[in-house]
């Protein structure tokens, strides 16, 4: 996958590029807004990671320009600005996701993966499968090996999000943002408790667990 990184802090840029390359991506980098914009418009990318404050051309303007030129590459904003209204501004300017600095690399990687996944259209799915776990999005019913699983509405949304990103690392923040629509970190890790509840419902009594904890990163649902 081709990724464009526009980041003016060279140390952070080097770290980002190296990390992404190690994860098997092809990466181009730019250190200012103008260079970044011309790169974004001249080559196809699967994801662009854009810092919010850039020399010569502000990150918001870079993305706005990209959108004006009909470029729909998913954009992940990185921002070191204070957060109360910055996220909204970033998303309004055409960004697809927003990550506040400082961030953990696993968080960034999980979000980049999610953005790429979003890009490849899979059509309207009415059913999600992971191994022998099925989720019917229309009747809102879950089954594992044919056995019905009772889920609370929020548990259903949590499972749905995990299954939509099956095989991908999903961080606690991503879950909090997508399933609960909260953009803050609760003092205690409440997500872990929700996950262990869900795990008790879908994995208990089955030999092969589906819901895995990825140490230092988050969670992943996969068949093996």
């Amino acid at each position, binding site marked *: 996958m081709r990724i464009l990184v526009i980041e003016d802090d060279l140390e952070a840029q080097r770290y980002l590029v190296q990390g992404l390359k190690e994860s098997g991506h092809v990466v181009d980098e730019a250190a200012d807004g103008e260079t970044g914009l011309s790169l974004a418009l001249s080559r196809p990318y699967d994801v662009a990671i854009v810092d919010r404050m850039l020399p010569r051309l502000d990150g918001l303007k870079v993305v706005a320009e990209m959108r004006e030129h009909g470029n729909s590459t998913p954009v992940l904003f990185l921002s070191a600005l204070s957060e109360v209204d910055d996220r909204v501004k970033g998303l309004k300017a055409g960004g697809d996701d927003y990550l506040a600095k400082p*961030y*953990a690399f696993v968080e960034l990687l999980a979000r980049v993966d999610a953005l790429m996944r979003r890009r490849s259209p899979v059509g309207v799915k009415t059913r999600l499968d992971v191994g022998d776990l099925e989720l019917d999005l229309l009747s809102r019913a879950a089954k594992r090996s044919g056995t019905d699983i009772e889920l609370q509405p929020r548990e259903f949304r949590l499972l749905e999000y995990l299954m939509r990103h099956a095989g991908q690392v999903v961080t606690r923040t991503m879950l909090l943002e997508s399933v609960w629509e909260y953009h803050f970190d609760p003092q205690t890790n409440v997500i872990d408790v929700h996950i262990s509840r869900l795990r008790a419902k879908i994995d208990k009594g089955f030999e092969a667990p589906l819901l895995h904890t990825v140490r230092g990163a988050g969670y992943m649902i996969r068949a093996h």
Partner: protein
Amino acid sequence: MRTKPGLLQTQAFRIVLVYVLLFAFSVTALLFFTYWNTRRTLDRQTDQIIEAEITGLGEEYRHFGLPGLVETLRSRSLHQGQALYLLVDGLHHYVAGNMDIWPQISRSTPGSMVEFDYERPVNGKMEARRARGRVLAVPGDFALMVAQDVHDRYLTERMFTTTLPWTVLLILVLGAAGGGLMSRNMLRRLDAINRTSGDIIAGDLTRRVPLTGAGDEFDALSDNLNRMLDRIERLMKGMRQVTDSVAHDLRTPLNRLRNRLEESAARLNASGALKSEMMAGEIERAIAETDQLIATFNALLLIAETDAGTARAAMSPLDLREVAADVAELYEPLAEENKVSLAVLPAPPAGVEGNRSLIAQALANLVDNAIKYTPAGGQVRIRTALTEDGVDLSVSDTGPGIPVSDRPRVVERFVRLEASRNSPGTGLGLSLVAAVAHYHNAELVLEDNMPSGLKAVLRFPKSAMRAVPGVPLKSAAE
């Protein structure tokens, strides 16, 4: 928030009212003076004519005696004019003159001018008229009345006295109406300034007072205010830039530090040596510490922003019950794990204007604290309540509570009570709640929960209350 002054309370209206009263008084005084002066002049003229008549008649009497006087009176009475005469005998019987009946005045008051009513035919009809004259005693117990008809003067005078109160009333009414209009106009201009100031107080520094282009004092004032606002906005922007760069300059090195640590941890894990394993653990701890630092820093920034009111977080009408239900849902499993019962008590709709994310975060902090400090088997209750002053959103627990003397202190930044020194947390939880409350013009109040524990209340004022979609606005006072 101060209430808008009523029309009667405005300075403009008061000034106009005083002016109108003064004006009405002056006009009345002036008119009275003119009236009095005119009447005096007219009376003096009438009196002179009467005196002349009397002198003439006296001459006649002196030369020709009573018959001469009667003769003269008869000849003068032939043509009816302004002059009136009546000569009566001791029994008030008519002797001569152009009046028939002695008027309702005493005949024994000779010398001074008197005014009286009499009747005379006008166009075949008897008409009551006004006259002014003098009574003279004529030897032989006769009495002579020499008078002038002053009915026209009397009518004018009457008209004057009846119209004057109306005139004054009209002046007062017109004056008050004019004053009202003027002060309303002034009020409107002032209102524009007040509204702009209100918006600016609420945090929107881009607002400016509109100019009418009339070039009057108000425009001058507005222009000055606008220039002042420009200056303040520049200063504020400068300050924001400082905060932004503080954020940037602090977060960037923190980020780098974290990157480097993660990198080394990964490298050490890969090499797999026993000694490196220990080092990896060390580094992971350092990462956890850094994360804590970041959390603290984020909270601090959020507090600073919400406290200063510089953040323009999107405000919308929301039902506090929904926020409470969402947060309770998020924390319910954690409460269960801690063997604490968590519930939202049923309540009527509680609509306020607010930022969902900020209020949810504040409530999450309160619930988090409550669960943390409540022993197993305890209860945490979230409740919304309409009060006479607004809406309360409260979290009560059955934990140890906070001593009254410590309550003001725990809201301060970084203060953690001795008893909780060893539990995790940034020490910013309650100050963040207080900042969010402040941002919403609300108040964070810590109370005793009966019979034991702490009750933290977010007290939203009445002005923050809103009707939420599908739910009518109601308050306890109604």
